[in-house]
């Protein structure tokens, strides 16, 4: 159970396929600022309005390696490593709403504009499987003469940041709504090593059996770690203060924009699309970068057999070789500032509503909300260093009661082809509660899941249009 709670806390994927288009939930506006709004205002319950966590590994599960089946651990690990490619990855994404709220305004009876704002904390980590490093560590170069080990396989990024956001949504007419959300990113930590290159290769040498060639151009950029690690007084409270200051504009800042719309072709056919996090963060405070840069070809040591009293001996020669190697593997530390673009996320949903609800209970703003059922397809794309992460979801939404909606989804992505998820949103009096869980088929044994994702939250809703 404890594990479950931990999982729940870590379980909201970058792909929020269950939340997207679930208009009963105010937080859908965080994914599509142009989504139809189903309330006159809301206040997120502080710290509880949106808890999202997701962990995913492509092509690998904990079960694959750690299953207690009596087989040798090393052979299981080896199998797993050999099955993985350099495009396989491990991803963590966690989001926690600290506060959020929204309200409708506009002239006349039907308020057609909506402002929403808030702050959330976000943690991301994205690590590609360093295939060639793993192969080299596993096999060595002995059986890999002529093989080029690609050092760009070291590709990872991670960050923790606070995001302050303000969004505007407008329903233009019965057919079209659009919205924008501006964001200020306040970075707490960042580590980035996504532009590495280099190779290591052992070939048959000209003068000796082997020739070793090193081409290294590797860099890890970090911000936010140096001052905390260098800290002479190691009091935790000081560190927490530093982190809080950074979360509230005291660190490295950036700007971003979300943009989205909803278009009703007919009462029943609706297209929704949005782009999130078009923006950047400028890292200039507390930067520490580590760079490994150099080339070397090494065939061995060449003794010179000096005649007595003459010239250089191989000892001196070796000293020079040693210096070459030291230079090659010397890590340069710099404080050069850097700017990183946020990975852009794209969502689009095409859905069809049917089964009109002949019920006075619903006087929904969105025309489509009058229907009991919705089916649709959802495409999610996200920028990643090697290739975009993509997911395609088919979903079915049903309004069971005026204050209870449920959505099931089937998702194809790089993690698996069998991800079934379910979400529900219930309004009990003025309190909205929602929960979404993913990979239900794997819940009997989470260790077999390549990814798990969970979202939940509580909001206080003003005059929900659903009631």
């Amino acid at each position: 159970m404890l594990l479950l709670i931990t999982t729940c806390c870590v379980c909201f994927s970058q792909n929020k396929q269950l939340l997207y288009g679930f208009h009963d939930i105010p937080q859908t506006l965080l994914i599509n600022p142009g989504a139809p709004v189903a309330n006159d205002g809301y206040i997120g319950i502080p710290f509880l309005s949106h808890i999202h966590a997701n962990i995913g590994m492509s092509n690998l599960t904990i079960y694959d390696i750690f299953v207690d089946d009596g087989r040798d651990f090393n052979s299981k690990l080896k199998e797993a490593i050999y099955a993985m490619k350099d495009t396989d990855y491990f991803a963590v994404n966690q989001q926690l709403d600290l506060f959020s709220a929204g309200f409708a305004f506009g002239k006349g009876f039907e308020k057609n504009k909506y402002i929403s704002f808030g702050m959330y904390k976000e943690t991301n980590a994205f690590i590609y499987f360093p295939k060639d490093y793993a192969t080299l560590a596993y096999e060595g170069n002995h059986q890999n003469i002529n093989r080029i080990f690609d050092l760009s396989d070291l590709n990872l990024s991670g960050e923790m940041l606070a995001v302050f956001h303000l969004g505007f949504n407008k329903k233009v007419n019965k057919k079209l709504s659009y919205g924008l959300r501006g964001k200020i990113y306040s970075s707490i930590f960042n580590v980035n090593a996504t532009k590495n290159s280099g190779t290591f290769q052992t070939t048959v040498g000209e003068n000796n059996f082997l020739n070793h060639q090193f081409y290294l151009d590797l860099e890890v950029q970090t911000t936010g770690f140096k001052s905390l690690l260098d800290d002479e007084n190691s009091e935790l409270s000081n560190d927490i203060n530093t982190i809080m200051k950074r979360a509230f504009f005291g660190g490295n800042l950036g700007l971003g924009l979300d943009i989205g719309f909803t278009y009703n072709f007919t009462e029943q056919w609706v297209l929704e699309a949005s782009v999130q996090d078009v923006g950047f963060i400028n890292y200039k405070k507390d930067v520490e970068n580590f760079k490994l840069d150099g080339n070397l070809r090494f065939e061995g040591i060449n003794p010179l057999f000096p005649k007595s009293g003459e010239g250089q001996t191989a000892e001196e020669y070796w000293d020079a070789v040693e210096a070459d190697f030291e230079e090659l593997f010397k890590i340069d530390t710099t404080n050069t500032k850097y700017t990183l673009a946020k990975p852009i996320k794209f969502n689009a949903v095409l859905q069809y509503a049917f089964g009109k609800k002949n019920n006075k209970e619903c006087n929904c703003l969105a025309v489509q909300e009058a229907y009991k059922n919705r089916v649709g397809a959802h495409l999610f794309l996200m920028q990643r260093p090697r290739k975009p992460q993509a997911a395609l979801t088919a979903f079915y939404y049903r309004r069971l009661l005026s204050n209870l909606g449920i959505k099931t989804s089937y998702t194809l992505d790089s993690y698996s082809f069998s991800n079934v998820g379910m979400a529900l949103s219930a309004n009990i009096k003025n309190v909205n509660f929602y929960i979404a869980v993913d990979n239900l088929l794997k819940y009997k044994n989470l260790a077999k899941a390549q990814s798990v994702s969970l979202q939940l939250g509580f909001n206080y809703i003003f005059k929900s249009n659903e009631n």
Partner: protein
Amino acid sequence: MFKCVLKYRILLFFSVICITACVSDIDFSQSESLTISPTLDASVIYFDTPASTFVGEGEEQTIVRDSVNVDVFTDAFIVDNVAKVLFLFEATNTINRNFQAQVDLLDQANVLQHTFTFSVAASLNQEEILAEHLEIFENQSLQAFKQTTKLVITLTLMPSNDGSILTEDSPGNLQFRSKATFYLNIDSST
């Protein structure tokens, strides 16, 4: 009433998922037995020296010697993880003389830890005569290897059968190639 029942059923469904979700048949302590055994090849010494190397001030030099400092073998990573080392030497001779090659392994205090020799046969008509030697470091010799900070290579020119001596103009070369193969055994439990 029906609505209520329905609502509670769904909530129940989610609760059941949450309660029944579990992780089973998993044993993380297995990672303690992690062992990886890569094999690394590295070039060591090479040279290509003409017959005239063995002539100094008009006289034949019977012995030439040079030494190479190495601090890699005593590196903690090597000491802790290397299970076996192979040294492969290959000599190609086109000089019309027999040689003996000797490799001494010395520690920090210049104390001899290990030594081995091998012979290279003479080349009568400058055809390439090959000699190979494989030195295996295991157990005791491996311990000696792991204390080595200096390699001394001594080439001894053996007397010729016909009494001839080498001069500055004697034809031929002595070529040496070598590599080391390190068998590692990296065990997480140690």
